[in-house]
């Protein structure tokens, strides 16, 4: 297995605040890797720094052998990286189909039809609502739309920021089922989550972030039974 994306000693500063401290991690081709951590640990910062916002202050982000930390977000998005950002951020005034089309921006419209068909197979709920304005959809449907929109750029690596945010347990379960389906197509997934239970069960490997540092790493199963992780993220059960 070769590493698809790798963080090498990455620092990120917001003015005087250091949000990421010498973060190193790697995601291999075909893996599901999760990053868990409490509020404010720096998970979203890490994900957004891949797209150059914020820019990292030192270190390297290697993607397929190339340092992308100084590239534009357009470059990154058009080279096989896509993300579903924190809080979903779908376009509220656009319909489901239009939102999906926005996802094709990095690669152009050539495969739009075919890919939209695939998305509707993956998320039948979206097909029912294809002409509905996105703002009128439920939180779960919006999350599905955000994931589908990211997939529309045919990514090699799918980045997800808290897809379970603010959703009922049953919906979270559905979303994770779908992620499993997506992964079974060979997609590499990097999943940022607070819902450690679901995330670690799905993931091949995981990292635990505390205050901008990677505190622990291991396979999903190892972390699930790790007493420290259980105490901090799984309610001690």
């Amino acid at each position, binding site marked *: 297995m070769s590493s698809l994306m790798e963080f090498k000693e990455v620092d990120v500063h917001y003015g005087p605040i250091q949000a990421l401290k010498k973060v190193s991690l790697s995601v291999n081709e075909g893996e599901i890797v999760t990053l868990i951590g409490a509020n404010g640990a720096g998970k979203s910062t890490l994900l*957004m720094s891949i*797209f150059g*916002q914020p820019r990292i202050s030192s270190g390297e982000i290697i993607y397929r052998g190339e340092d992308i930390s100084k590239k*534009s*977000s*357009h*470059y*990154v*998005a*058009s080279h096989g990286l*896509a*993300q579903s*950002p924190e809080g979903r*951020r*779908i*376009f*509220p*005034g*656009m*319909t489901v*189909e*239009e939102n999906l*089309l*926005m*996802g094709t*921006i*990095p690669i152009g*419209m050539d495969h739009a*039809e075919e890919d*939209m*068909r695939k998305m509707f197979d993956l998320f039948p709920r979206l097909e029912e609502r294809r*002409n509905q*304005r996105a*703002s009128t959809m439920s939180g779960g449907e919006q999350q599905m739309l955000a994931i589908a*929109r990211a997939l529309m*750029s045919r990514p090699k690596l799918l980045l997800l920021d808290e897809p379970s945010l603010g959703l009922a347990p049953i919906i979270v379960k559905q979303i994770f089922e779908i992620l499993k389906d997506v992964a079974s197509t060979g997609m590499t997934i990097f999943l940022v989550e607070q819902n450690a239970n679901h995330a670690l069960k799905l993931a091949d490997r995981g990292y635990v972030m505390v205050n901008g540092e990677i505190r622990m790493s291991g396979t999903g199963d190892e972390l699930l039974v790790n007493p420290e992780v259980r105490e901090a993220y799984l309610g001690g059960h």
Partner: protein
Amino acid sequence: MSQAVVSINYKKSVIDAVIAGLLALIVFGPIVGIVLDGYDFNAEPERLMWIVLTVMAGRLAASVFFQTSKGAAFLYKHSSKDEGVHVLLPGHKSKLRWIIPLTIVIALLVPFIASKYILTVVILGLIYVLLGLGLNIVVGLAGLLDLGFVGFYAIGAYGLALGYEHLGLGFWSMLPIAAIIAAIFGAILGFPVLRMHGDYLAIVTLGFGEIIRLVLTNWTELTQGPNGMNAPLPTFFGMEFKRRASEGHVPFHEFFGIPYSSAYKYIFIYLVLLLVVLGVLYVKKRLTKMPIGRAWEALREDEIACRSLGLNHVLVKLSAFMIGASTGGLAGVFFATYQGFVNPSSFTFFESALILAIVVLGGMGSTLGVVIAAFVLTVAPELLREFADYRVLAFGMLMVLMMIWKPRGLVRMTRTGVEQREGNVK
């Protein structure tokens, strides 16, 4: 709704009326209550009292009415909570299908049936349609609040005058050149404001509009400052619309052997302008269906989402500024040729405000709304000359009423959903 007996709270109504009366006193007191007489002031309490009493009576009546069940129903009907873009089903056939060709035919007939005066008013209306369409791309579609749009209008108008004066270029060469120059200025304005939003953007663009006007006023060697400059008329295949043509040209009327009339030039300007407006409408319609149009809307809706999608926001914002600016430049060229003369006082902030009012009143992003609003705001004041004193008052009242009852503008922005393609089996 429950069938509960509607009780009217008269005390609340009286309080409403008193508050309205106090507000009226504050608003009208200095305007109506005090009259400037030479260097003296005369108090006119009686006039003021009547106005305040009228306002109070009106507020009392309205307050009582809105508490009855009929009034409540009326309020409910007109309080649109539904916001945002109205998306039509794909394949929706607009009712306007028949109206568009009909309007074009009528528009083509206008110059031959209307008087010269009406024609000049309609030309002005069309110029504002162009301005409204240009600003609509920037404000309505891309969501970038631009308060200095008049700058591009001035650049277009002065472009024609300067090109004629210094380079000997006529209307037809300057029309595209002025549009390009305005677009370049749009980019110049666009670059520094790429990272700005809302209030900050508004202030910087406001400054831009003023800078253009001040440069035109003060660079007297180039622009003759406040004295203004002459602008040429368009020519018809090299023929001029003057009574006596300049060296080497044939006047239009002599060539066709018809008596001279000053109306010909307006008819010609009108027809060219109409073509340009139709062209801009068409281009705009195409653009909104293309990826760039959707990118503008996406940028307005959620900039962070756009970045996470790798949308090149520099390109998207600049293109909105540039296309909007070039449309403003085109309007400027027509304004200059129509007036035959330009001077900086035509390009004050009030013009920017008026154009913005057209966009807001018309319904952000709505093309049809902008066309209607442009005519309402420019043609109506001309036709109601007798009431000229009350123009600004009426304008203000119209805006307030519109914002209460139709906060989304006259015509809601509508967009047909993406078409269902073949292969997308249901």
